């Protein structure tokens, strides 16, 4: 993906900005402009807290191109405290350390280096909440 794509999605990737439906109150991440709950337009931005729990997880041992340097890395579905599930990598956990129900919080980390231009792409990951 090129630079314009990363620029377009910066609010989502740096600050977890989604949307809230003004008709039914559903909180949406990622933003999608039409509420899947009530099919009404949903354009009002909503910034998520970034806190949640691990809903499921996996340790990736065979990475797609561009992610090889991170192997092994842990990916997860995180259930945000406001409701939505979000797909992301976990960070600051060793392989096999994650568990379902683990409290996590969002942090901004390097995602990958993009192609030959060498742009370093940042975005959200989740780390265990420090007890």
């Amino acid at each position, binding site marked *: 993906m090129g630079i314009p*794509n990363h620029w377009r999605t910066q609010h989502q990737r740096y600050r977890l900005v989604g949307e809230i439906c003004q008709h039914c109150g559903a909180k949406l991440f990622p933003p999608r402009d039409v509420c899947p709950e009530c099919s009404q337009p949903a354009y009002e931005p909503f910034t998520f807290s970034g806190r949640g729990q691990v809903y499921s997880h996996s340790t990736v041992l065979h990475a797609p191109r*561009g992610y090889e340097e991170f192997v092994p890395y842990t990916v997860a579905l995180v259930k945000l405290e406001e409701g939505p599930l979000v797909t992301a990598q976990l960070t600051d956990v060793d392989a096999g350390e994650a568990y379902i129900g683990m409290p996590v919080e969002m942090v901004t980390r390097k995602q990958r280096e993009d192609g030959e231009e060498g742009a370093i792409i940042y975005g959200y990951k989740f780390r265990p909440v420090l007890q």
Partner: protein
Amino acid sequence: MRDVSIIGIGQTKVGENWEKSLRQLAGEAVLAAMRDASIEMADMLYVGNMLSGEIAAQEHLGALVADFVGLRGIEAVKVEAACASGAAALRQAYIAVAGGMADVVIACGVEKMTDEVGEVVTSALALAGDGEYETFHGLSFVAINALLMQRYMYEFGWKHRDFAAFAVNAHQNAVHNPYAMFPKPITVEQFEQARLIADPINLMDSSPVADGAAAVVLCPTEQARAFTDNAVRIAASAVATDAVAIHDRPDPLFLQAVYTSAQKAYRQAGITPQDIDLFEAHDAFTIMAALSLEACGFAPRGQGVRLAQEGDIALDGRIPISTMGGLKGRGHPVGATGIYQVVEVVQQLRGQAGGNQIKDAHWGMAQNIGGSGATVITHIMEALS
């Protein structure tokens, strides 16, 4: 709408076909299907394919394949719906014949995957997911399925070993399929000791990617007798969609599009799940086999694994699946798989399934799943003779 039947089938052996190009694979399958149907001409050709641009450096497959098989000039296009591309091509062919737009239509599925190395194929397959919100985070297609399997094991208390019965059954059935990639039995121990890819999914949970092509020829049922004595009727053709990303689904462990397309198909055919004599399920991963059995109504939620463990999916069981090896044993040439499944159902309903023949098979179902369940295409076939 006109009733539609399948009057010809063709397939190539699935595997690493280094010596054959994409057009040669497709050509071999299409020509075999045309010979089987005793036709020399067709009105239209639909080519199902997912990754030719990414892996085989070729798009524009409709014209390419039509020309290559001697059908230059006819209407022909490529159809794409990730791993469900094959059945999507059949669906388009069905619509064309049922709607009266054409009489003789060919649906072909083809995938050429072994021209590229592992990471390239891994990245290409991940295109089935949500690019900005799943694959951006480094999820392979296997990892997406692994998230489902991990949660499933947690919610319903299954161990990884419990899924072995799916892979063992598939490989056992592949033994008698001359077109299968891995016609060798496997043991539970081999299943357990296989190399991890994205935990809990290991190599034996996963279907192997491969090269392959398959094709079917359709015509109106009332004209089928003019071509062949062993036509098989398409009793139902149904498509449903869901959110591409699993995080966008209210209940990730319930494959809503599987449920919807299966229910539509049962209604069209006028039957219930109990009437199905065999089911070519989309067992790309063991977890997908379990989830699709549940959403199709063959098992209660969380109990798809039990069907496998208790032998209900075996050739002599209550609902035989993967009767010619499935995606796991026959191999998964992604965009071709949906047509292979239908070819295998036709073999069963014609009584041509050899050592794997299901006795008195009358109703056969094939279900092709795109991505982790976002496009699901169900066909039900009925024996005519």
